[in-house]
């Protein structure tokens, strides 16, 4: 038996091609001891849900800068639930107006991280809130 590692899937849904933020976070979480799956750009909600299932991800982190979050994020959350992944922690980072946060949380997002969030804050949040595993 070896120590459990928290597995984080980082995905960019939709069409924006700016993934510096996603890569910085992936690298930062690696240094915090997480196993980070980076799936690349232009993911559909179906692709993200399917990858989360195959990877048995503990966390799905969505990075969106395009403004399409109100369309894409609820679909990702719904598909995760449809795949039986309702216990996966969902976080969103990028440019999300404060007014949208309540609706995103309603849709199933556990936490929205805005500009200025540190890697340490994200790591601490994930460690504290990740689902427990049923078997040791």
């Amino acid at each position, binding site marked *: *038996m*070896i*120590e*459990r*590692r928290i*597995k984080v899937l980082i995905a960019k849904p939709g069409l924006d091609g700016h993934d510096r933020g996603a890569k910085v976070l*992936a*690298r930062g*979480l*690696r*240094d*915090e*001891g*997480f*196993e*980070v*799956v*980076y*799936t*690349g750009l232009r*993911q*559909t909600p*179906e*692709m993200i849900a*399917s*990858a989360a*299932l*195959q*990877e*048995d991800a503990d966390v799905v982190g969505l990075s969106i800068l395009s403004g399409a979050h109100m369309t894409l994020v609820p679909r990702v959350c719904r598909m995760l639930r449809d*795949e*039986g*992944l309702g216990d996966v922690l969902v976080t969103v980072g990028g440019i999300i107006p404060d007014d949208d946060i309540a609706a995103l949380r309603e849709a199933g997002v556990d936490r929205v991280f805005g500009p200025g969030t540190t890697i340490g804050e994200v790591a601490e949040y994930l460690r504290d809130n990740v689902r427990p595993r*049923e*078997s*040791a």
Partner: protein
Amino acid sequence: MTAADRGAELAERVRAGDRRTLARLLTEIENRSAVAESALRVLYPVVGGAHLVGITGAPGAGKSTLVAALARAVRSTGRPAAVLAIDPSSPITGGAILGDRIRMQEHAGDRDVFIRSMASRGHAGGLAAASVDAAAALDAAGFPIVFMETVGAGQSEVEVASIADTTVVVEAPEMGDEVQAIKAGLLEVADIVVVTKGDRPGAQRTAAQLRAMLTVGATDEAEAIRRAEAGGRRRPKRPQVLLVTAPTNDGVPELLAALDRRAAGRDTAMLQPARLARAAAQLDAVMAERLRARIRDGRHRHRIDALLVAIAGHELDPYAAADRVMAILDGDEPANDAEPDRPAADRA
């Protein structure tokens, strides 16, 4: 629920084709848990049908792109395909970036391509155990072919050859001169050598050089077999060299055909040496895990720590220390799987 019950339950659901449970079992396998061990004990007798293909080569040689193309070729024949993509863990923090899916996006919506990233986690020999077990789980879930993509290999990372049925070594064009091709190491364990990026200048020449150098100075095959057997050595492999341009599919059907020819010969002598080598690697890995677990056991920690201090201080040589460790373990009770510090009711 005990680990044994939960393992048996996972095994049954994996066999029934439940992909969510398969993903969960793979996590248990990565964690080397008691649940994984129980599930594998149930599954082992009923698996062995899948063709386990190891794909290795230097970082950036094109392994992930080649695996994506191979999965596409397998799908075009109507079969499902599984991919285990291994990337390195940080030796400092234990974290990892698993980036192989980026090259495999075309398969993301296809339920019959199961892609799983694994971090190497750096435990000596343990990766072999975890990846063989993961391949067995994928086999049990009904995947007839499992591609195992290794971390980017240097000249001597030959572990994959000890566990795969077929080892494919990937070489990018212009990566070295002719002498590189006859050095001992990675190329020697290849059953098939693939030169990737076949549309690049120099790709044809690299393939031609590899073909020439992999046979230069080698004796006639029948003679080589006779001499190796007479000397009690394993006989050198004679890999086929194929040129592939994965994005355009050039050479990919030929590569899959070569793999399928080997799989078809699986019951014959062709793959038997690979399977015996894998059995040896599995037994070694599990024995090593069990020994390490016993050494780390709380009962022995003080004595082992004292031995480590003595070795570090050059008061004791590591060989004598190893003898003492073996003596300590020999003194264990035979049935000693549970920790002695806890009452029996807490076990299991």
